[in-house]
């Protein structure tokens, strides 16, 4: 692939000291993700995928090994530098949405830009509205988070992850709290974003989701067990069409 690398991991190890013991959560993981890939990271609980996600998201730093995000080495960065890096380069989508309570959709989406002093309040509002329109919530800008369904809340969360035009979108079990139909709606959205050239990393323990991504990385016991390009990529929109429409 001629695309430039967005994520480069070289021999990532992460040890946790728990009491007297040292737990090796990651034991030397290396891979590179290029711009425009839609990667699923799979693994059972305890495989190290949460730890890997935290490192990829610059919330945590590896004990050893090198991690470059969009060419920038992360391991030696300070807490503040990583906060700024997250703000500019990463869009998070969480399983439980993590929207601010009693806050409108547009204000939730504006949040990352609030921490970017280069973006003024007018541009911030415009970009938030654009992002919400992109995820199909252009008509719900001023709905509060508690007035929305799970699928709508997750769309707001995706808009929030898009608003800073990140180098990579990190989704952590982003469909985990949703019913099947809504899950596929969200997957359709991710596939659309991928088609637009977005780099997406989707962490899940659900093997079905992997079929809709371009590449699957499987972890077990803190090591990379499998890393393969998917030959046949299913279309989530087709699958969605086969699902029965829920009755009101």
């Amino acid at each position, binding site marked *: 692939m001629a695309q430039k690398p967005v994520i480069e991991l070289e021999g990532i190890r992460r040890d946790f000291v728990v009491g007297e013991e040292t737990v090796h959560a990651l034991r030397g993981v290396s891979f590179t993700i290029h711009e425009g890939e839609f990667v699923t990271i799979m693994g059972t609980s305890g495989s190290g995928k949460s730890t890997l996600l*935290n490192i990829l*998201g610059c*919330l*945590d730093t590896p004990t050893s090994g090198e991690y470059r995000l969009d060419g920038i080495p992360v391991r030696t960065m300070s*807490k*503040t530098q990583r*906060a*700024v890096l*997250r*703000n*500019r380069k990463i869009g*998070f989508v*969480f399983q439980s949405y*993590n929207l*601010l*309570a*009693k*806050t409108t959709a547009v204000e939730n989406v504006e*949040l*990352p830009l*609030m*921490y*970017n*002093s280069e973006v003024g309040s007018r541009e911030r509002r415009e970009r938030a509205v654009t992002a919400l329109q992109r995820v199909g919530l252009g008509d719900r800008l001023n709905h509060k988070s508690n007035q929305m369904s799970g699928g709508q809340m997750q769309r707001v969360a995706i808009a*929030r992850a898009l608003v*800073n035009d990140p180098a990579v979108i990190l989704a952590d079990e982003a469909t985990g709290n949703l019913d099947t139909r809504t899950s596929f709606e969200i997957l359709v959205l991710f596939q659309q974003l991928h088609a637009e050239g977005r780099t997406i990393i989707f962490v899940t323990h659900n093997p079905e989701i992997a079929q809709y991504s371009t590449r699957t990385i499987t972890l077990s016991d803190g090591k990379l067990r499998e890393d393969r390009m998917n030959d046949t990529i299913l279309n989530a929109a087709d699958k969605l069409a086969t699902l029965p429409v829920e009755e009101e």
Partner: protein
Amino acid sequence: MNITNLFKIALKAIGANKMRSFLTMLGIIIGVSSVIIMLALGTGSKATIMQEIEGVDPGALNVIPGPSYEDIDGNWLPEYSQTITQADYQSILEKNKYLKAICPMVYTSGQFINGKNNHSGSVQGVNNEFLDINGLSISQGDMFTDPEVKGASKVCILGKTVVDKLFPNEADPIGAVIRINSIPVRVVGVLKSKGRTAFGQDQDDIVLMPYTTVMKRMISQDYFDMIYVAATSKEMASLAKQDLTEILRENHKLREGDIQDFRVNSLEEATSMVDSVMNVLTLLLSCIAGISLLVGGIGIMNIMYVSVTERTREIGLRMSVGARTVDIMSQFLIEAILISVTGGLIGVLIGSGISYLARFVLLNFTEYHILISVEPWTVLLSFAICTITGIFFGWYPAKKAANLDPIDALRYE
């Protein structure tokens, strides 16, 4: 994140828990309003006392009979009241080096009658230097003259209250002859009104007569109840006091170690004593009020800790989308300061309101005319204290929030 956004977030957080925020503010509100009230009362009382002596000669002193209570263990003997004599007055007149006015005084009470109007009150027998020393003036007629003093003339000066009682129909009192303890006395002047003292004493309920007249014709007393004097200046007051003491000790043939049977008080000592007593009192009251501010501050700290815990996930989210430590820290600090300062603002309003209401009630419905006043510096001080309280008590909760690990915070249930 810029300051405006931080304020918006803080306002939103406070608004989201209105009742809780108000209860938290209540501590600060009570604290600040009590500090304001205490300071208003303190500075007001001081101003009132100072106002009362306004016009009194700054170098004023008085000589009063009898030893100080400490010297005699409180065993007051009747003769102690009679130690300031005519001879003493003469000696002071002849020997004083630092005085510009001397006025002996005798005191009695009397029944004043004008036709069918009568009133009882006090009579001060003085000379014509009395007015200057005590900052009084005549509003109608004239002060009695030196010859009238020397001649023990039956003349008097009335205070406004006495005039009102004896001449109810606004009749001109000047030249009228009234009876004081059945002696006919001609009214020659009326004193300018001074109103009531802070403690309700009517300063206009007074009759002045030549001391000679009182001593010879009314009470046949040969000693003075007091001698008012004025030093040439405020600075000379302490020298004058020393001088007076020496003159009188010599007159009374007192030797070293003898109990001194008279006292010399200076206005300056009295005012500086009032001043320091009032300052200590104000400070003490304010400290007690300040304790409630401290309690209020602890309330803020408590609720901020609760708030940080409740909003752990929010903090985690903010961190994950790029909030730096300083952003989180500022957010919670500003929230604490805002609670504290809003409480302070309400406290200032309530405190000032109560102070001015108390002033209004005291002036109009009671005899205690204390000029309670809220000084601007006390308001500024309150705001400064509130800001400091907010920062001080918000610091640790804010620090706790800022030091959260985003991974743990996001996972917090």
